[in-house]
């Protein structure tokens, strides 16, 4: 199986489409660092309500690497799924388009092995993209601007001590890996249904956009379905930037997302095993 996964990974990284996401992150994130460095950023102090803020004196490296990394993760999080689907949508449909299903399925490997190795390779590529994001935002940010406290505003303004931040980022990226795996799994499922990668890419993007919109609309009918929309749980990484961390909520979100991943995977497996290869 490892042999097949490594072959699939090789195929993924030989496609130019894979590099769109990596290049986008590689260009955008340093640009954000640059603009951060050129502005007089208050490092998040501005999030404290003015009437409180004006009554205090502040000192410390507030406009630091952790702060900008948090901003980057927050801002880009909504866009990363669209870079991920470029990989996921092509995993199976790309073989159909290229006609290489015939070459692949007539090898002495089971369809289960084929689809599972492709699925795992897709997940690995997704995680690598997030690792790249972590390197360009967090590592580069801390090198350029140093570590420090992190001021964030969710339902309250929270100031996290310097030695209390890094592990949260690691946990957040770990959670983000699970979230993005849901996205790639959905694209993978669509990819198993068609013979052209464009369809799964566009469909997955459309579903994410529509679900996100439904989550935001404040109407009772949509409030009823919201808990069933997986997009509702994609931003669970934010839970790691709370104090205390709501561990039950984290576990719940992880289980729901994992359930989606497994559901999409098994559905894809079923479709692929039953499929007649006519291309």
């Amino acid at each position: 199986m490892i042999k097949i996964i490594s072959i699939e990974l090789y195929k993924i990284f030989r496609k130019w489409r894979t590099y769109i996401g990596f290049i986008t992150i590689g260009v955008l994130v340093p640009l954000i660092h640059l603009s951060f460095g050129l502005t007089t950023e208050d490092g998040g102090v501005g999030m404290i309500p003015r009437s409180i803020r004006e009554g205090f004196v502040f000192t410390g490296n507030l406009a630091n690497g952790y702060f900008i990394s948090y901003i980057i993760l927050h801002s880009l999080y909504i866009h990363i799924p669209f870079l991920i689907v470029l990989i996921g949508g092509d995993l199976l449909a790309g073989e159909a388009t290229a006609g290489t299903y015939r070459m692949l399925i007539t090898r002495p490997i089971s369809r289960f092995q084929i689809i599972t190795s492709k699925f795992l390779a897709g997940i690995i590529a997704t995680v690598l993209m997030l690792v790249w994001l972590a390197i360009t935002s967090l590592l580069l940010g801390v090198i350029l601007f140093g570590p420090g406290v992190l001021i964030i505003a969710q339902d309250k303004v929270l100031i996290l001590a310097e030695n209390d931040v890094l592990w949260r980022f690691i946990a957040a990226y770990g959670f983000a890996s699970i979230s993005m795996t849901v996205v790639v799994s959905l694209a993978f499922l669509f990819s198993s249904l068609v013979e052209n990668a464009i369809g799964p890419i566009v469909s997955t993007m459309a579903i994410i956009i529509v679900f996100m919109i439904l989550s935001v609309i404040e109407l009772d009918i949509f409030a009823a379905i919201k808990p069933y929309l997986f997009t509702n749980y994609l931003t669970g990484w934010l839970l790691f930037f709370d104090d205390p961390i709501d561990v039950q909520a984290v576990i719940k979100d992880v289980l729901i997302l994992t359930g989606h991943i497994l559901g999409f995977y098994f559905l894809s497996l079923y479709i692929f095993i039953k499929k007649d290869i006519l291309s």
Partner: protein
Amino acid sequence: MKKIILLLIVTMSISAQSKDPQKILDKVVQNFNSVQDYTVNAKINVDIEFLKVPEMNAKVYFKQPDKMKMDSKGFAMLPRQAFNFSPNSLLEKKHTSVYTGTEKLNGKNVDVIRVIPTSDSSEVILSTLWIEQDKYLIRKIESTSRQGGTFQINLSYDGKSAYPLPSSIKFEFDLPKLNLPKKLSGKMDNKEEKKSDHPGKGIVMIKYSDYKVNQGIPDAVFAEKKK
């Protein structure tokens, strides 16, 4: 407004035992002026609803008459009034003082004096000082600002220092009615907010240690660091 307050206080204090409040205040200032400069380590704990801050460590520098500076390896925040606190800053401006009586505060006999700044530009419109008798140490200050909020500073002295420098300060203030920060997150479900033990109030506890008094601090220390 100020004149009314003044009139009320004067009227109320007619029945009180009379001491010369200004003499007491002068003694307090004189006492404090024995300190030319100091550096001290501060451990700061902030307890404000909707603002969660870890314990902070800072170094505070002071040089007469009014130079103050705070430094920290990490991050620190200190209430402005606590940061800028010295009896001089409170008492050097034109004011009227009224003696209102004696009380027992934390087992100590204290004189209670009301100080009303007479300047129209003063941020504070009324301050009440609890001054320990004989030692002329300020134990407590309660001030009301022009905007209508009040803050209270409780000072403790451990007796280890020969100087009138507190070992800890408890700073309490009213929280204004605020619109809490808008959620930046995409998470739409509203978690239940934890109720504060003291709604409407913010508390900052500062513990001072390792005073180094009158050791000489160059003015350069207080110069603004260029970003």
